Protein backbone atom coordinates (compact mmCIF):
# COMPACT_ATOMS: atom_id res chain seq x y z
CA UNK A 1 0.00 0.00 0.00
CA UNK A 2 1.28 3.42 -0.87
CA UNK A 3 1.89 5.64 2.03
CA UNK A 4 -0.07 8.80 2.62
CA UNK A 5 1.33 12.06 1.25
CA UNK A 6 2.50 14.44 3.93
CA UNK A 7 3.42 17.20 1.55
CA UNK A 8 2.29 17.92 -1.94
CA UNK A 9 3.41 20.99 -3.83
CA UNK A 10 1.60 21.83 -7.03
CA UNK A 11 2.94 24.33 -9.52
CA UNK A 12 4.61 26.27 -6.73
CA UNK A 13 6.46 29.40 -7.74
CA UNK A 14 7.99 32.46 -6.19
CA UNK A 15 8.95 35.72 -7.83
CA UNK A 16 10.75 38.67 -6.33
CA UNK A 17 9.97 41.54 -8.60
CA UNK A 18 11.21 40.26 -11.90
CA UNK A 19 13.40 37.52 -10.50
CA UNK A 20 11.87 34.07 -10.72
CA UNK A 21 13.35 32.16 -7.85
CA UNK A 22 11.05 29.16 -7.88
CA UNK A 23 9.32 28.12 -11.08
CA UNK A 24 6.45 25.68 -11.14
CA UNK A 25 7.69 23.12 -8.66
CA UNK A 26 5.50 20.06 -8.25
CA UNK A 27 6.50 17.54 -5.66
CA UNK A 28 5.08 14.90 -3.37
CA UNK A 29 6.58 13.58 -0.19
CA UNK A 30 5.13 10.64 1.70
CA UNK A 31 5.04 10.19 5.43
CA UNK A 32 8.30 9.01 6.88
CA UNK A 33 10.37 9.73 3.82
CA UNK A 34 13.85 11.17 4.18
CA UNK A 35 14.38 13.56 1.33
CA UNK A 36 17.58 15.38 0.50
CA UNK A 37 17.51 18.62 -1.41
CA UNK A 38 20.54 19.79 -3.34
CA UNK A 39 21.31 22.32 -5.98
CA UNK A 40 23.74 25.11 -6.81
CA UNK A 41 23.90 28.19 -4.62
CA UNK A 42 20.93 30.40 -5.20
CA UNK A 43 18.87 27.64 -6.81
CA UNK A 44 15.95 28.39 -4.53
CA UNK A 45 16.23 25.62 -1.95
CA UNK A 46 15.87 27.83 1.09
CA UNK A 47 13.12 29.76 -0.61
CA UNK A 48 11.22 26.53 -1.03
CA UNK A 49 11.56 25.89 2.71
CA UNK A 50 10.42 29.41 3.48
CA UNK A 51 7.24 28.77 1.53
CA UNK A 52 6.53 25.38 3.04
CA UNK A 53 7.07 26.75 6.54
CA UNK A 54 4.96 29.82 5.86
CA UNK A 55 7.68 32.44 6.14
CA UNK A 56 7.15 33.51 2.55
CA UNK A 57 3.97 33.61 0.58
CA UNK A 58 4.06 31.76 -2.75
CA UNK A 59 3.49 33.79 -5.89
CA UNK A 60 1.59 30.87 -7.39
CA UNK A 61 0.68 27.25 -6.85
CA UNK A 62 -0.50 25.38 -3.80
CA UNK A 63 1.03 23.73 -0.79
CA UNK A 64 -0.80 20.67 0.52
CA UNK A 65 -0.10 19.23 3.95
CA UNK A 66 -1.71 15.86 4.45
CA UNK A 67 -5.07 16.52 2.82
CA UNK A 68 -5.23 20.18 3.56
CA UNK A 69 -4.35 23.21 1.49
CA UNK A 70 -2.23 25.36 3.76
CA UNK A 71 -1.32 28.31 1.55
CA UNK A 72 -3.05 30.76 3.84
CA UNK A 73 -2.01 29.25 7.14
CA UNK A 74 0.36 31.52 9.13
CA UNK A 75 3.76 30.08 9.99
CA UNK A 76 3.12 29.55 13.70
CA UNK A 77 0.01 27.46 12.94
CA UNK A 78 2.02 25.29 10.59
CA UNK A 79 4.52 24.76 13.37
CA UNK A 80 1.70 23.82 15.71
CA UNK A 81 0.55 21.34 13.09
CA UNK A 82 3.97 19.76 12.88
CA UNK A 83 5.91 21.57 10.17
CA UNK A 84 9.08 22.61 11.97
CA UNK A 85 12.12 24.14 10.38
CA UNK A 86 15.66 25.26 11.07
CA UNK A 87 17.29 28.29 9.53
CA UNK A 88 20.33 28.39 7.36
CA UNK A 89 21.58 31.36 9.31
CA UNK A 90 21.32 30.94 13.06
CA UNK A 91 18.14 32.56 14.25
CA UNK A 92 17.84 32.19 18.00
CA UNK A 93 16.72 34.04 21.07
CA UNK A 94 20.34 35.01 21.43
CA UNK A 95 20.06 37.02 24.64
CA UNK A 96 18.57 34.04 26.46
CA UNK A 97 20.35 31.04 27.84
CA UNK A 98 20.34 27.66 26.18
CA UNK A 99 17.95 26.41 28.82
CA UNK A 100 15.55 29.27 28.25
CA UNK A 101 15.62 28.76 24.51
CA UNK A 102 14.77 25.10 24.84
CA UNK A 103 12.14 25.76 27.49
CA UNK A 104 10.24 27.96 25.09
CA UNK A 105 9.81 24.99 22.81
CA UNK A 106 9.17 22.43 25.51
CA UNK A 107 6.48 24.43 27.25
CA UNK A 108 4.62 24.92 24.02
CA UNK A 109 4.79 21.28 23.08
CA UNK A 110 3.43 20.42 26.51
CA UNK A 111 0.78 23.12 26.29
CA UNK A 112 2.01 24.93 29.35
CA UNK A 113 2.85 28.19 27.66
CA UNK A 114 -0.34 30.05 28.57
CA UNK A 115 0.07 29.46 32.30
CA UNK A 116 0.75 32.70 34.10
CA UNK A 117 0.03 31.96 37.71
CA UNK A 118 3.14 30.09 38.74
CA UNK A 119 6.81 30.56 38.23
CA UNK A 120 8.43 28.37 35.67
CA UNK A 121 10.76 26.54 38.03
CA UNK A 122 11.64 22.96 38.69
CA UNK A 123 9.16 22.65 41.53
CA UNK A 124 6.17 23.74 39.51
CA UNK A 125 7.07 22.05 36.26
CA UNK A 126 9.05 18.89 37.06
CA UNK A 127 8.16 17.19 33.80
CA UNK A 128 9.38 20.03 31.64
CA UNK A 129 12.64 20.12 33.48
CA UNK A 130 13.05 16.39 33.08
CA UNK A 131 12.66 16.72 29.34
CA UNK A 132 15.10 19.57 29.31
CA UNK A 133 17.71 17.56 31.17
CA UNK A 134 17.24 14.69 28.78
CA UNK A 135 17.77 16.93 25.80
CA UNK A 136 20.90 18.53 27.20
CA UNK A 137 22.25 15.12 28.03
CA UNK A 138 21.51 13.72 24.61
CA UNK A 139 23.37 16.58 22.93
CA UNK A 140 26.12 16.78 25.48
CA UNK A 141 25.39 20.39 26.25
CA UNK A 142 24.91 20.36 30.03
CA UNK A 143 27.86 22.67 30.54
CA UNK A 144 26.25 25.33 28.35
CA UNK A 145 22.83 25.15 29.96
CA UNK A 146 23.12 28.56 31.61
CA UNK A 147 25.20 30.22 28.92
CA UNK A 148 23.59 32.90 26.82
CA UNK A 149 23.30 31.72 23.27
CA UNK A 150 25.14 34.77 21.96
CA UNK A 151 28.20 33.72 23.97
CA UNK A 152 28.40 30.32 22.33
CA UNK A 153 30.65 29.49 19.44
CA UNK A 154 29.06 29.45 16.04
CA UNK A 155 28.98 25.70 15.78
CA UNK A 156 27.31 25.21 19.13
CA UNK A 157 24.73 27.81 18.19
CA UNK A 158 23.98 25.76 15.09
CA UNK A 159 23.42 22.78 17.30
CA UNK A 160 20.90 24.72 19.36
CA UNK A 161 19.25 25.74 16.12
CA UNK A 162 18.67 22.11 15.27
CA UNK A 163 17.67 21.05 18.76
CA UNK A 164 15.01 23.74 18.84
CA UNK A 165 13.46 22.15 15.80
CA UNK A 166 13.78 18.55 16.84
CA UNK A 167 12.46 19.30 20.32
CA UNK A 168 9.38 20.72 18.63
CA UNK A 169 8.03 17.22 17.92
CA UNK A 170 7.88 17.69 14.18
CA UNK A 171 5.93 15.61 11.73
CA UNK A 172 7.67 17.29 8.85
CA UNK A 173 11.16 18.45 9.73
CA UNK A 174 12.84 20.93 7.40
CA UNK A 175 16.58 21.13 7.95
CA UNK A 176 18.45 23.86 6.11
CA UNK A 177 22.11 22.84 5.97
CA UNK A 178 22.19 21.42 9.48
CA UNK A 179 25.83 20.42 9.42
CA UNK A 180 27.29 23.57 7.91
CA UNK A 181 29.94 24.88 10.23
CA UNK A 182 29.93 21.72 12.32
CA UNK A 183 33.10 19.83 12.95
CA UNK A 184 33.33 16.20 11.92
CA UNK A 185 32.48 14.92 15.38
CA UNK A 186 29.45 17.15 15.73
CA UNK A 187 28.31 16.30 12.23
CA UNK A 188 28.36 12.60 13.05
CA UNK A 189 26.44 13.29 16.23
CA UNK A 190 23.75 15.22 14.43
CA UNK A 191 23.34 12.57 11.77
CA UNK A 192 23.02 9.89 14.41
CA UNK A 193 20.37 11.84 16.22
CA UNK A 194 18.45 12.58 13.07
CA UNK A 195 18.52 8.94 12.15
CA UNK A 196 17.25 8.09 15.57
CA UNK A 197 14.09 10.14 15.08
CA UNK A 198 10.92 8.03 14.90
CA UNK A 199 10.32 6.56 11.48
CA UNK A 200 7.08 8.42 10.95
CA UNK A 201 8.88 11.74 11.10
CA UNK A 202 9.34 13.01 7.59
CA UNK A 203 12.59 14.83 6.97
CA UNK A 204 13.59 17.19 4.21
CA UNK A 205 17.17 18.28 4.36
CA UNK A 206 19.18 20.77 2.36
CA UNK A 207 22.82 19.84 2.53
CA UNK A 208 25.98 20.58 0.64
CA UNK A 209 27.91 17.85 2.39
CA UNK A 210 27.50 15.13 -0.20
CA UNK A 211 28.66 12.32 2.06
CA UNK A 212 26.11 13.14 4.69
CA UNK A 213 23.36 13.54 2.17
CA UNK A 214 23.82 10.53 -0.02
CA UNK A 215 24.57 8.31 2.92
CA UNK A 216 21.44 9.01 4.89
CA UNK A 217 18.59 9.97 2.59
CA UNK A 218 16.08 7.75 0.82
CA UNK A 219 15.56 10.13 -1.98
CA UNK A 220 17.33 13.14 -3.41
CA UNK A 221 15.81 16.06 -5.25
CA UNK A 222 17.84 18.48 -7.29
CA UNK A 223 16.82 22.06 -7.81
CA UNK A 224 18.44 24.27 -10.38
CA UNK A 225 17.46 27.87 -11.09
CA UNK A 226 14.12 27.31 -9.45
CA UNK A 227 13.08 24.16 -11.26
CA UNK A 228 13.26 20.49 -10.37
CA UNK A 229 15.77 18.78 -12.58
CA UNK A 230 16.16 15.44 -10.89
CA UNK A 231 14.35 13.35 -8.35
CA UNK A 232 15.26 9.84 -7.39
CA UNK A 233 17.36 7.53 -5.30
CA UNK A 234 20.73 8.85 -4.16
CA UNK A 235 22.52 6.52 -6.54
CA UNK A 236 20.48 7.58 -9.53
CA UNK A 237 20.96 11.24 -8.81
CA UNK A 238 24.63 10.77 -8.26
CA UNK A 239 25.01 9.28 -11.68
CA UNK A 240 22.91 11.95 -13.36
CA UNK A 241 25.28 13.79 -15.70
CA UNK A 242 23.41 17.07 -15.55
CA UNK A 243 23.62 17.10 -11.78
CA UNK A 244 27.33 16.38 -11.99
CA UNK A 245 27.76 19.20 -14.42
CA UNK A 246 26.04 21.91 -12.41
CA UNK A 247 26.58 20.80 -8.86
CA UNK A 248 29.44 18.46 -8.09
CA UNK A 249 32.95 19.68 -7.87
CA UNK A 250 35.96 18.01 -9.40
CA UNK A 251 36.85 16.23 -6.25
CA UNK A 252 33.44 14.68 -5.82
CA UNK A 253 33.52 13.61 -9.42
CA UNK A 254 36.85 12.04 -8.80
CA UNK A 255 35.59 10.31 -5.69
CA UNK A 256 32.48 9.00 -7.34
Amino acid at each position, binding site marked *: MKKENILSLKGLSKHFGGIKVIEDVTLEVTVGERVGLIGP*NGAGKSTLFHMIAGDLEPSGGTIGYFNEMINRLPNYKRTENGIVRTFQKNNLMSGLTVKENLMLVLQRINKKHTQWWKKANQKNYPLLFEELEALLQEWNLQEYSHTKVQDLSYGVQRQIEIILAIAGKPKLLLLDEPTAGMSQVETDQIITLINRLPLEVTIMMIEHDIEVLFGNMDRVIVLNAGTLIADGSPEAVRENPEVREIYM*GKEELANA
Partner: protein
Amino acid sequence: MLSLKEVHSFYGASHVLHGVDLEVKKGSVVTLLGRNGMGKTTTIHSIIGFVTKKQGEIWLEGENIISLKSHQIAKKGIGIVPQGRRIFTTLTVRENLTVFAEQDKGNWDLERIFDLFPRLKEREKTHAGNLSGGEQSMLSIGRALMRNPKILLLDEPTEGLSPLMVGEVMDVLLKLKEKGMSMLLVEQNIATALSIADDVYILNKGEVVYHDHPNELRGNMDIAYHHLAIS
Protein backbone atom coordinates in the same frame (compact mmCIF):
# COMPACT_ATOMS: atom_id res chain seq x y z
CA MET B 1 54.74 37.40 8.50
CA LEU B 2 52.23 36.86 11.27
CA SER B 3 52.96 35.21 14.54
CA LEU B 4 51.12 34.80 17.81
CA LYS B 5 53.07 34.36 21.00
CA GLU B 6 51.40 33.22 24.19
CA VAL B 7 48.10 34.86 23.32
CA HIS B 8 45.43 34.81 25.98
CA SER B 9 41.98 36.11 25.13
CA PHE B 10 38.93 36.79 27.21
CA TYR B 11 35.24 37.49 26.77
CA GLY B 12 34.39 39.46 29.87
CA ALA B 13 35.40 37.16 32.70
CA SER B 14 35.70 33.98 30.69
CA HIS B 15 39.17 33.02 29.62
CA VAL B 16 39.00 31.46 26.16
CA LEU B 17 42.47 31.33 24.66
CA HIS B 18 45.14 29.97 26.96
CA GLY B 19 48.43 30.98 25.46
CA VAL B 20 48.20 30.25 21.76
CA ASP B 21 51.42 30.16 19.74
CA LEU B 22 51.06 30.17 16.00
CA GLU B 23 53.00 31.31 13.00
CA VAL B 24 52.06 32.06 9.42
CA LYS B 25 55.11 32.40 7.21
CA LYS B 26 55.09 34.62 4.21
CA GLY B 27 53.36 32.96 1.30
CA SER B 28 52.22 29.98 3.29
CA VAL B 29 48.82 28.65 4.23
CA VAL B 30 48.19 27.64 7.79
CA THR B 31 45.03 25.77 8.65
CA LEU B 32 43.45 25.77 12.04
CA LEU B 33 41.35 22.77 12.94
CA GLY B 34 39.31 21.98 15.99
CA ARG B 35 35.94 21.01 17.20
CA ASN B 36 33.15 23.47 17.78
CA GLY B 37 33.80 25.95 20.51
CA MET B 38 37.52 25.35 20.85
CA GLY B 39 38.64 28.86 20.07
CA LYS B 40 39.33 29.00 16.34
CA THR B 41 37.16 32.02 15.73
CA THR B 42 38.46 33.63 18.87
CA THR B 43 41.98 33.27 17.50
CA ILE B 44 41.00 34.97 14.27
CA HIS B 45 39.11 37.66 16.16
CA SER B 46 42.08 38.28 18.39
CA ILE B 47 44.27 38.90 15.38
CA ILE B 48 41.90 41.29 13.64
CA GLY B 49 41.10 43.07 16.89
CA PHE B 50 37.46 42.14 17.43
CA VAL B 51 38.47 40.70 20.74
CA THR B 52 39.92 43.53 22.77
CA LYS B 53 40.68 41.85 26.05
CA LYS B 54 43.83 39.94 25.38
CA GLN B 55 47.41 39.40 26.50
CA GLY B 56 50.53 38.24 24.75
CA GLU B 57 52.09 39.33 21.49
CA ILE B 58 50.81 39.36 17.94
CA TRP B 59 53.51 40.24 15.46
CA LEU B 60 52.70 41.40 11.99
CA GLU B 61 55.69 42.11 9.81
CA GLY B 62 57.82 43.07 12.74
CA GLU B 63 55.22 45.08 14.60
CA ASN B 64 53.31 44.07 17.68
CA ILE B 65 49.68 44.79 16.86
CA ILE B 66 48.03 43.35 19.92
CA SER B 67 46.83 46.67 21.27
CA LEU B 68 45.78 48.26 17.98
CA LYS B 69 42.17 48.88 17.04
CA SER B 70 40.68 46.66 14.40
CA HIS B 71 40.52 49.33 11.70
CA GLN B 72 44.20 50.04 12.22
CA ILE B 73 45.01 46.35 12.01
CA ALA B 74 42.94 45.92 8.89
CA LYS B 75 44.69 48.88 7.29
CA LYS B 76 47.99 47.05 7.65
CA GLY B 77 46.88 44.66 4.97
CA ILE B 78 44.83 42.01 6.70
CA GLY B 79 41.72 40.79 4.94
CA ILE B 80 39.05 38.82 6.70
CA VAL B 81 36.30 36.42 5.72
CA PRO B 82 34.50 36.09 9.02
CA GLN B 83 32.46 33.20 10.26
CA GLY B 84 28.77 33.66 9.56
CA ARG B 85 29.71 35.79 6.53
CA ARG B 86 28.63 39.09 8.09
CA ILE B 87 27.94 40.84 4.84
CA PHE B 88 26.15 44.19 5.07
CA THR B 89 22.55 43.28 4.53
CA THR B 90 21.30 46.79 3.82
CA LEU B 91 23.86 47.45 1.12
CA THR B 92 23.60 46.16 -2.40
CA VAL B 93 25.94 43.46 -3.61
CA ARG B 94 27.91 45.98 -5.57
CA GLU B 95 28.22 48.34 -2.61
CA ASN B 96 29.40 45.53 -0.39
CA LEU B 97 32.20 44.92 -2.82
CA THR B 98 33.20 48.45 -3.71
CA VAL B 99 32.74 50.53 -0.58
CA PHE B 100 35.63 49.02 1.31
CA ALA B 101 37.74 48.16 -1.71
CA GLU B 102 41.35 49.20 -2.00
CA GLN B 103 41.92 48.50 -5.64
CA ASP B 104 45.19 50.34 -5.98
CA LYS B 105 46.91 47.78 -3.76
CA GLY B 106 46.55 44.85 -6.09
CA ASN B 107 44.76 43.48 -9.04
CA TRP B 108 41.48 42.30 -7.63
CA ASP B 109 38.70 44.43 -8.98
CA LEU B 110 34.99 44.15 -9.55
CA GLU B 111 35.42 42.50 -12.88
CA ARG B 112 37.60 39.71 -11.57
CA ILE B 113 35.27 39.07 -8.67
CA PHE B 114 32.34 38.84 -11.04
CA ASP B 115 34.32 36.48 -13.25
CA LEU B 116 34.98 34.29 -10.28
CA PHE B 117 31.39 34.43 -9.02
CA PRO B 118 29.06 35.01 -11.97
CA ARG B 119 26.15 34.55 -9.57
CA LEU B 120 27.08 37.82 -7.89
CA LYS B 121 27.03 39.69 -11.16
CA GLU B 122 23.48 38.57 -11.75
CA ARG B 123 22.55 39.86 -8.31
CA GLU B 124 24.63 43.04 -8.52
CA LYS B 125 21.86 45.44 -7.50
CA THR B 126 20.11 43.22 -4.96
CA HIS B 127 20.29 44.00 -1.28
CA ALA B 128 22.83 41.61 0.10
CA GLY B 129 20.38 40.57 2.82
CA ASN B 130 18.25 38.95 0.14
CA LEU B 131 21.01 36.72 -1.15
CA SER B 132 21.01 33.00 -0.58
CA GLY B 133 23.37 31.59 2.00
CA GLY B 134 25.93 30.48 -0.52
CA GLU B 135 25.78 33.72 -2.44
CA GLN B 136 26.49 35.54 0.79
CA SER B 137 29.56 33.40 1.31
CA MET B 138 30.77 34.34 -2.16
CA LEU B 139 30.16 37.96 -1.40
CA SER B 140 32.08 37.78 1.82
CA ILE B 141 35.06 36.24 0.05
CA GLY B 142 34.79 38.78 -2.73
CA ARG B 143 34.67 41.62 -0.27
CA ALA B 144 37.86 40.48 1.39
CA LEU B 145 39.64 40.03 -1.95
CA MET B 146 38.62 43.49 -3.09
CA ARG B 147 40.78 44.91 -0.34
CA ASN B 148 43.80 43.23 -1.91
CA PRO B 149 45.27 42.18 1.41
CA LYS B 150 48.71 40.80 2.13
CA ILE B 151 47.33 38.20 4.44
CA LEU B 152 43.91 36.61 4.53
CA LEU B 153 42.09 35.33 7.58
CA LEU B 154 39.46 32.85 6.45
CA ASP B 155 36.99 31.48 8.97
CA GLU B 156 35.20 28.59 7.29
CA PRO B 157 34.93 30.40 3.98
CA THR B 158 33.35 27.50 2.14
CA GLU B 159 30.46 27.08 4.53
CA GLY B 160 27.21 26.85 2.60
CA LEU B 161 28.87 26.63 -0.78
CA SER B 162 28.00 23.88 -3.21
CA PRO B 163 30.76 21.36 -3.91
CA LEU B 164 31.34 22.96 -7.28
CA MET B 165 31.81 26.37 -5.71
CA VAL B 166 34.02 24.94 -2.98
CA GLY B 167 36.25 23.64 -5.72
CA GLU B 168 36.38 27.00 -7.41
CA VAL B 169 37.15 28.85 -4.22
CA MET B 170 39.90 26.42 -3.31
CA ASP B 171 41.37 26.89 -6.77
CA VAL B 172 41.45 30.62 -6.21
CA LEU B 173 43.08 30.24 -2.84
CA LEU B 174 45.70 27.97 -4.37
CA LYS B 175 46.44 30.53 -7.05
CA LEU B 176 46.69 33.25 -4.45
CA LYS B 177 49.08 31.11 -2.50
CA GLU B 178 51.20 30.62 -5.54
CA LYS B 179 51.38 34.36 -5.93
CA GLY B 180 52.72 34.64 -2.39
CA MET B 181 49.65 35.47 -0.34
CA SER B 182 49.74 34.29 3.25
CA MET B 183 46.62 32.76 4.71
CA LEU B 184 45.20 31.56 7.98
CA LEU B 185 42.37 29.19 7.21
CA VAL B 186 39.86 27.72 9.61
CA GLU B 187 38.14 24.77 8.05
CA GLN B 188 36.00 21.90 9.26
CA ASN B 189 36.46 19.69 6.25
CA ILE B 190 39.83 18.09 6.92
CA ALA B 191 40.33 16.89 3.37
CA THR B 192 39.75 20.34 1.96
CA ALA B 193 41.96 21.88 4.59
CA LEU B 194 44.85 19.54 4.00
CA SER B 195 44.71 20.01 0.25
CA ILE B 196 46.09 23.50 0.58
CA ALA B 197 47.84 23.69 3.92
CA ASP B 198 51.57 24.10 4.56
CA ASP B 199 51.08 23.86 8.28
CA VAL B 200 48.33 22.46 10.47
CA TYR B 201 47.38 23.49 13.99
CA ILE B 202 44.72 21.80 16.05
CA LEU B 203 43.10 23.75 18.83
CA ASN B 204 41.46 22.23 21.83
CA LYS B 205 39.91 24.28 24.60
CA GLY B 206 41.91 27.32 23.68
CA GLU B 207 45.25 25.55 23.46
CA VAL B 208 47.29 24.30 20.54
CA VAL B 209 47.36 20.54 21.00
CA TYR B 210 48.90 19.58 17.70
CA HIS B 211 51.15 21.28 15.21
CA ASP B 212 52.78 19.62 12.24
CA HIS B 213 53.23 19.43 8.56
CA PRO B 214 50.09 18.23 6.79
CA ASN B 215 51.83 15.32 5.15
CA GLU B 216 52.35 13.77 8.54
CA LEU B 217 48.68 14.12 9.23
CA ARG B 218 47.64 12.89 5.84
CA GLY B 219 49.65 9.78 6.36
CA ASN B 220 48.15 9.16 9.73
CA MET B 221 44.58 10.40 9.90
CA ASP B 222 44.11 8.68 13.24
CA ILE B 223 46.18 11.36 14.91
CA ALA B 224 43.91 14.00 13.54
CA TYR B 225 40.77 12.23 14.61
CA HIS B 226 42.29 11.60 17.98
CA HIS B 227 42.99 15.28 18.55
CA LEU B 228 39.78 16.40 17.03
CA ALA B 229 37.57 14.09 19.01
CA ILE B 230 38.84 14.70 22.49
CA SER B 231 37.23 17.52 24.32
